[in-house]
């Protein structure tokens, strides 16, 4: 009987706790949802979308889709090389970013950096590079080095470098510190620690981040042509500007096939890794 007496208060306390925790969490969630709903209406009001234009535009768009058929494949001689150029811009940009980030990420990781100041400087630069969109980098490089694929390669390299430094440094920071300490205790220098202790541990993570980044970069490289940085985006801009919808449809199809096949391929690779 006395046992029962012990059990009940315990239970009561537990359920008390649950009641105390749950509503608080729900209240926050509800608050976020309520704020989201109000903010959504506010955004709609501020955007001041012309709904009659929306309707007329949709009718236009459907007509345009009809006009797009059939796709005009006659210009494949220009479109396919442009698509290949986009692909090459993405590959080269990603490779450059991976090579540089492999050095800088070790300087940015707090458990490996020579000191905290170096780590925060490298991280700060990485944030700046990562946050400015690729196409804005492309605009900046076009002003500096002129039109063509080169500013595209540089833009992809710089933007990817920012992201890769961040995620590579994170993977290094997540690893077990014991390994580094053991190597340090045995008298290994910085390079030896990285080569023997760090790289074998994080290589899988680095590979999957690299594949993901290449996937994103191939998508980005298709739009760089819109500002004149080479590749298939330029062909699409040209076709749309001259209202050549059939050619535009073919180019859009090529872009879709490019990105879709990369998505499929990287899904396969992810399963393997």
């Amino acid at each position, binding site marked *: 009987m006395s046992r029962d007496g012990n059990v009940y208060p315990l239970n009561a306390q537990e359920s008390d706790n649950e009641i105390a925790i749950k509503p608080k969490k729900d209240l926050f969630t509800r608050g976020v949802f309520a704020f989201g709903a109000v903010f959504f209406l506010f955004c709609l009001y*501020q955007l001041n979308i012309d709904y009659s234009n929306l309707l007329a*535009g949709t009718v*236009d768009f459907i007509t345009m889709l009809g006009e797009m058929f059939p796709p005009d494949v006659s210009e494949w001689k220009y479109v396919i090389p442009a698509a290949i*150029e986009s692909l090459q811009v993405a590959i080269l940009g990603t490779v450059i970013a991976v090579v540089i980030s492999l050095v800088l990420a070790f300087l940015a990781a707090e458990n490996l950096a020579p000191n905290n100041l170096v780590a925060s400087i490298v991280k700060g630069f990485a944030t700046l590079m990562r946050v400015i969109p690729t196409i804005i980098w492309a*605009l*900046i490089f076009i002003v500096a*080095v002129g039109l063509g694929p080169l500013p595209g390669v540089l833009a992809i390299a710089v933007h990817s470098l920012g992201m890769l430094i961040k995620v590579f440094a994170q993977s290094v920071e997540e690893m077990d510190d014991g390994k580094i300490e053991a190597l340090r205790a045995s008298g290994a220098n910085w390079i030896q620690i990285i080569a023997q202790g760090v790289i074998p541990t994080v290589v899988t993570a680095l590979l999957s981040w690299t594949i993901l980044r290449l996937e994103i970069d191939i998508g980005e490289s298709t739009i760089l042509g819109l500002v004149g940085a080479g590749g298939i985006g330029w062909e699409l801009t040209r076709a749309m500007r001259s209202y050549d919808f059939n050619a535009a449809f073919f180019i*859009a199809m090529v872009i*879709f096939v490019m990105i879709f096949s990369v998505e499929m391929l990287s899904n396969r690779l992810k399963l393997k890794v």
Partner: protein
Amino acid sequence: MNMIQELKKRKRLQILLLFFFVTGLTIWSAIGTNFSFYEVFSGFGLISNFVFLDLLPPDIAASGTLLEAILETLYMGFVGMVVGALIALVLSFLAASTTTPHPVVQVIVRAFTSIMRNIPGLIWALILVASYGIGVTVGTLSLILGSVGFLTRVFADTLEEIDTGKIEALHATGSSYFQILAQGVFPQFFPGFIAWSLYNLELNIRASTIIGMVGGGGIGFAIQKGIKLFQYKEVSMAIVLVLILILSTEFLTSKIRERII
């Protein structure tokens, strides 16, 4: 012993082959894009000249007009996420193999959303601008298209990963279809729904900063215009605003994610 050595040898060969493959691919790309280190290094002086003399310091006086553009960017990104999430919520139930009414519906929805997802937002904007004209309508619509494409896929994947034991248990107690949805499916789906929507908001805000370059409204238009008119100090001010917007969105979404999930 022999076998281990054999395996090691084979693995080394694999790594070597991969290395040569990647190197070959890189060289092929470098030739195709006429890449030369000489040009990069000789361009380096030009780039730093441009950045330090033309771009910096940002023109604070321009921030008044730019503020309007950056807010428009935020509004478009948020509306795109909310509308996209609502549409994707419905579509994902049709696209997940566990909840779809018919496999044919599933294939059709997956195909449609794959087209939306795999054509970049900027390209959508370029196509839509021909029918809707320049302005925020185009920007918002192309962000909605991208969000629906992305969110339908990840929502459907989340739905497919749901533990079916719970649903069967509810089924056994005689719950109706909607009761099962509300009690069995929704609680497991909710964290994924929130996390992916917040991530989509981050993606949208990034995309919405550049969508103006093809006539979609927002700060991208101001950046494009500034570069065409050589008003580089205004451009750098706009970039600073983009930085602030993206970083504060990342900060807010990570806080909400921590609290809710």
